[in-house]
């Protein structure tokens, strides 16, 4: 029996071979290649030369990289809490089984299926000066127009608004799924105790979905650090680089300036940042729930 088990043991690995092959080809190999590129002076079209950690030194000494890193951190710091709070609010509001709530769930999720090009086109119509929706509204109420896409501070804010509108569907759906897992008898007991809606929210609902809130927050941190399309299409990273995120920096250095080694070094730094967020997600997801009293 033991011999048979030992003989069959390695064959069990064949079941994971298809996944493992794809994992190695699409993830492990590009990651290793990226590390190799980051240690070389290389462009897109041929072999490079080994330069050690020089690309990392150049990246960390580049004020444009530091500005892009700061932009990305600020963007994540503002967009993620907004996505979590708005997603939770919508999920709470739509956690009912009526036709209207089904319609609104579909409506709020519908923006998520649009491509980044369409999303940015819609929001350009809103923010563009002159004929844009905001410009017209400001004119109607007699306020001076704001260059939403061309003013420092406002440009990153505008990209953030478009991003929240685009990405809100997933957090809302995850929260809805979590809310529907809460046993209804808890709410019935609260009703018998005549608990206020706020008390029900803070003592039953939020504690019950605490891990989902963390999960959503960490997924969004990972996603929003990868901001690219909205910033490129709405503001081109401007003005003065104030809305240029890290991925756009990597793209410009690699594809516009052909400095692929430096771009790869910046990519590895971004990878480390996202890895930290993913590790936090793993720790939280695998943490055992506290024993109930």
């Amino acid at each position, binding site marked *: 029996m033991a011999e048979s088990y030992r003989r069959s043991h390695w064959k069990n690995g064949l079941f994971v071979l298809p996944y493992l092959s794809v994992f190695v080809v699409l993830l492990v190999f590009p990651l290793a290649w990226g590390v190799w590129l980051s240690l070389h002076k290389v462009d897109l079209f041929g072999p490079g030369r080994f330069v050690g950690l020089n690309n990392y030194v150049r990246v960390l000494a580049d004020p444009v990289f530091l500005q892009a890193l700061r932009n990305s951190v600020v963007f994540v710091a503002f967009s993620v809490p907004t996505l979590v709070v708005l997603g939770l609010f919508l999920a709470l509001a739509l956690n009912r089984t009526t036709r209207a709530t089904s319609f609104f769930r579909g409506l709020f999720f519908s923006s998520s299926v649009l491509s980044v090009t369409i999303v940015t086109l819609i929001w350009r119509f809103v923010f563009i000066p002159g004929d844009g929706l905001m410009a017209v509204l400001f004119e109607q109420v007699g306020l001076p127009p704001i260059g939403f896409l*061309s003013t420092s501070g406002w440009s990153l804010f505008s990209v953030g608004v478009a991003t929240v509108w685009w990405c809100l569907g997933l957090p809302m759906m995850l929260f809805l799924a979590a809310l529907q897992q809460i046993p209804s008898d808890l709410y019935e007991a609260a009703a018998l105790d005549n608990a206020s809606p706020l008390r029900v929210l803070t003592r039953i609902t939020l504690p019950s979905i605490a891990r989902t809130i963390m999960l959503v927050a960490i997924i969004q941190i990972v996603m929003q650090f990868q901001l690219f399309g909205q910033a490129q299409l709405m503001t081109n990273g*401007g003005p003065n680089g104030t809305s240029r995120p890290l991925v756009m920096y990597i793209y410009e250095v690699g594809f516009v300036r052909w400095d692929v080694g430096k771009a790869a070094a910046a990519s590895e730094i971004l990878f480390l940042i996202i890895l930290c967020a993913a590790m936090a997600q793993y720790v939280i997801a695998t943490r055992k729930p506290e024993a109930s009293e």
Partner: protein
Amino acid sequence: MRRLLFSSVAIAALAFGPAAHANTMIELQRFFGACDADYGKVTDVSAAVGECGIITALINKFEADNPGIDVNVTTVEWPGYDQLNAQLASGAAPDVVSMHYSAISDYQTRGLIEPIDPVLAAQGILPDSFTDAARNGVTKEEQMFGLPFDNWTMLFHVNLNLMKQAGLVNADGTPILPTSVEELVTQGKQFKEKTGKPYLVQILANETATYARILYTLLQQQNADFFADPLKITLNTPEAKTAVETMKRIKDEGLTTVGLDYPAAVSAFANGDGGIAVNGTWLIGDYVAQSEKSGTALSGGYTVYPVPQLFPGRDSTYSDGHSWVMPRKDRSPEQVEAIGKLFKFLAENDFQWARTGHLPAVKAVFDMEQFKSLPHRSNIAEIAQTGQSLPAAVQRQFAIQDIIGEEVGAAVNGDKSVEEALGSAESRINDLLANL
């Protein structure tokens, strides 16, 4: 059964027989926009207007005239070099690509595009049939690396209706344009006072190219040799400071539109939101068409001039051009011949392309009566002499343009001091060029 088999084979042979004489396919990749809805079937090139319309109609006409050749057109967002780079890196480059003269050095030095002299020679196209400016733009190491198609530059597109309202029109109907920075400011203030609108319509948002082109022009007009060494730019100079301060002053005095990106600036001028659009040659055809319609802001009141000489150094304006290049790849002799025919067709129809507003690359077009009778061409003819590009050995000109645009934009919009922006631009560009 056997009869059935033979019948099937015979039918298959008839059905697939023409495959033996399949058309030669050319994969052509270009910018200039997409307009298939309007021009997808148009073969009468003279009926087309604007860059997109004319190039689409030209390709349609070429296919109609050459039934054995199919041209598969891929339209990319301007300028399309990031996509081309990815295609070259993955060995999937198209056969023919639109390319600015200023980008050719990047690809030629890495051996990514082929010299086209043999292709032109096989079709009997003589190199000296092109203008010097166009030929120099594509010639590297004494070989031509692209078919020159035009020369272009930034211009002053003038709304004469508003200029009349502002009292800035001569007795002969021509606009009064500035001959110095002080005159520009004075006339701009007068225009604003009389019309309530900004004097200039500029692309100041989400765009880097315009800032760079205007800076190059103002530097050239001061005789500044900012690229004496092709691997090093010099921007910490009094001339550069004066140029950027001039651009900033125009904005600070309220003489320009602000916050407009490219499409918004193009339509703002067409809507009559300002007096003079600082934009390229390629818009002449479109604006002329609008001026010929009634009920538009430009109706009967459009003209165009080169960017005026604002500094006493010399009359100069930054110029570049479009060409067609052949990425290095394996091609059949039939494909090379088909590309040669396409190049010959494009060169022979350079007049049609010149209707966009671009200056022709083919010398003979300048002598054509049809060209001479195109509106406003005599106003801008001097660009053939005053247009000046960056030195051909300067690489990564588009990346440099992005850096200059970002830094000068920061200075113009008050996010940085002029000195800080020029210092930052210089160090960023020199770091880029030191790590080619």
